[in-house]
């Protein structure tokens, strides 16, 4: 490849990136808890709305742990449907897929765990925790319904935040009036070995509807996330 061709390819890539950034309009609603010494998150997500005509974009319900300082590296596990990214595949049928993703060293990864396993009313149990993995070593361990799904090596043994999230990977479609309820939520602190109530959700801007709490009322163990219908 000639120097000019390489330059043209780089210029094309940059243009594509600029365009992609310009049209990216994903939305995120999150309940978050901050502390400097967290190392676990446990809870169920109650899938309540089915965006039946997902096209092009993705809808995801991850539970996340922000390892190290705020921002940067994190680990997540949850349910998704729609467009695939990295090693996660497209999934445009009515059922939701269990997946995990995150960043290590600032590098993103995504893997499907179980394809098409939940519909509306599904209540998977997820857990992220720094503990002894099945290989006998202490790792960040991800569980789905109490079954170990990944043991991950990191440069950090504690986390700065835990969060429950509802996110779209692009601009919503007209029926994306979607919500998800998290319940039985607990967090864990380094060295404690005990689960503590998540506490009332601190909502993260910009997209959330704080006045539409769970039908079961506000609780230290629940967080109800919502993205408004498109106008």
């Amino acid at each position, binding site marked *: 490849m000639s120097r000019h061709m390489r330059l043209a390819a780089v210029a094309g890539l940059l243009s594509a*990136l600029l365009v*992609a*950034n310009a049209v*990216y309009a*994903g939305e*995120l609603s*999150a309940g*978050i808890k*901050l502390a*400097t*010494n967290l190392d676990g998150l446990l809870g169920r997500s109650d899938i309540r709305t089915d965006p039946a005509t997902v096209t092009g974009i*993705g809808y*995801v319900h*991850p539970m*996340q742990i*922000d390892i*190290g*300082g*705020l*921002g*940067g590296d*994190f680990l*997540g596990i*949850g349910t*998704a449907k729609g467009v695939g*990214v*990295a090693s*996660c595949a497209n999934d445009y049928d009515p059922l939701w897929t269990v*997946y995990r*993703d995150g*960043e*290590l*060293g*600032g*590098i*993103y*990864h*995504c893997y499907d765990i179980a394809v098409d396993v939940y519909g509306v009313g599904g209540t998977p149990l997820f857990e992220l925790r720094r503990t002894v993995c099945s290989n006998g*070593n*202490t790792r960040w361990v991800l569980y789905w319904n109490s079954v170990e799904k990944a043991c*991950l*090596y*990191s*440069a*950090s*043994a*504690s986390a*700065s*935040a835990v*969060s429950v*999230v509802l*996110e779209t*990977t*692009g601009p919503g479609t007209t029926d994306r009036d979607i919500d998800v309820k998290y319940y039985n939520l607990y967090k864990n*602190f*380094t*060295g404690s070995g005990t689960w503590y109530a998540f506490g009332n959700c601190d909502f*993260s801007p910009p997209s959330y509807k704080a006045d539409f709490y769970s039908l079961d009322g506000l609780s230290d163990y629940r967080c109800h996330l919502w993205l408004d219908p498109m106008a």
Partner: protein
Amino acid sequence: MTVRVRLQRRNYSTLALLIVVTLAIVAVAGVSRLMGPGATACSGVAEGAIVESQDFTPWESRRSHLPEYPINPSGSPLAPIPADSLVPNNTLDGLPLQWASVGGNGALVRYFWGVPLGPTVTAWNFWDGGGIELERSLVEGWAAADYASEIGERAQIVGVGSYEGVLTWADPGPNGGRPHHLSWSDGTYTYTLIAERSAARVVNLARGMVCG
């Protein structure tokens, strides 16, 4: 006569080849691994000497993102923290320590920046604005090779003083910034340096801290 010239040319060619091979070996030893067995990697790395993967995942091609939240939402002033030998003057790359987060079990996150860390500044605001983050964590038995293996082919093993470290070029953030992450362990704590600087600059900053 013709034969002698050819022989001389062949000798010159052989000599040139030997020089190139020697330089390549030095470069590989000094850059790709940046540390030989038992050696101490304290010398400066030249700009451009570290060859990195050009692969990346764009911000919009991720299924989920962390909620962006201010690092210091209360805007509280810097609490006194004990200095350590890595940053004895609380200044890194000419930037003063502006804030620190002290966690359990020896965790410490330090933020070096040219301006105070206001109550709305997120991690990406901080990195994109030129700030340097230094994390410390107590990770028992941490090994660079295991961490690099977990991350994959975009991780590089580099020397940081007498330790092995892992260097990565992060995926772009919401505004396109791509910090380098460099993690190493001194046998007690694991450290991670995060900054939107060149790979060479980040390695040299870490070496400067470790080697003094």
